[in-house]
């Protein structure tokens, strides 16, 4: 009897916590929708790549290494960026999307491409969604989005993955 009560209490605590988290995530979603831009949440999970996996590809080098574009802030790019990546303009701005389009003009449609930003938490990033959609609409077939949950600093730099500084 005691055991059953304990199970019930602990189970309810767990469910309560999960419900709170779900509510919080719903709140974030509402804000993103209100922001009126293509959210990073529009990028399917199958098109996402985790930082550890990308770092492994970079360190392995060779043919498996994708072309990497930073589609966020130019100032952040100047502070530090993924080794070998190219600044391609903020995806939330028309000028940024135009730059991205011109940069990929000579890239093969089946090239392995990784986009990243990390300016804000993933759920609030204004750049990734539009940039991903643009490449998809242009016919690129192997585009992945780097999933940075919090930001580039916490999820890439602080983990010791390859970084270059300067423009």
């Amino acid at each position, binding site marked *: 009897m005691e055991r059953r009560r304990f*199970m019930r209490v602990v189970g309810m605590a767990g469910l309560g916590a999960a419900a709170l988290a779900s509510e919080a995530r719903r709140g974030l979603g509402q804000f993103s929708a209100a922001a009126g831009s293509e959210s990073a949440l529009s990028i399917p999970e199958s098109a996402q790549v985790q930082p550890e996996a990308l770092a492994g590809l970079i360190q392995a080098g060779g043919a498996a290494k994708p072309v990497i574009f930073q589609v966020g802030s130019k100032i952040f790019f100047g502070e530090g960026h993924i080794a070998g990546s190219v600044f391609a303009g903020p995806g939330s701005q028309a000028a940024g999307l135009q730059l991205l389009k011109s940069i990929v003009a000579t890239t093969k449609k089946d090239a392995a491409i990784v986009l990243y930003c990390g300016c804000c938490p993933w759920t609030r990033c204004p750049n990734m969604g539009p940039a991903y959609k643009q490449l998809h609409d242009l016919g690129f077939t192997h585009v992945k989005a780097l999933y940075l949950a919090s930001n580039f600093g916490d999820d890439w730099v602080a983990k010791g993955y390859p970084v270059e500084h300067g423009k």
Partner: protein
Amino acid sequence: MASRTVRRAWAALLLGLLLAAGKPGAAMPPEDPLLNKPAPAFVRDDLSGRHVDLAAYRGKVVLLNFWASWCAPCQLEMPRFAAWQHQYGAAGLRVVGVSMDEEAAGTRRVCRKLGVDYPVVMGDAELGTLYGGVFGLPVTYLIGRDGQVRARFQGESDLKAMEARIRELLDGR
């Protein structure tokens, strides 16, 4: 039998907590190396052309907020910062914004829209690097009256916790 039940119960609780933590922002950010060190000094002009010298705020509690016009969570916080400047200004709080926009036009537009009347300077890679690399927004530093960095808030912050920390610093704790 009893221990298996207890194990299952803890597993249920852990599962709930893991779900609660969720994917975004679940991990605690690594501790900032600037904590309890002197805040890196800088001198810049704000959007109105007034000189902002961080060192001149010695004796005040400073809320130093890095933000950008394209950063949605930043804009949720800024009206609160403006309100705190008015509420706690007499007690010694000074709010300073650092815009990480490339152009001042977007910064001015957002400041007007949100009623930001505290000094805002334009940041760049150099200033970001001075603060250990500002790679994500928003990020807010609380600097004590002694000029030392006392707290760092990254991402979508708990504003109640931030306000509580400001009060502590104003009280000299």
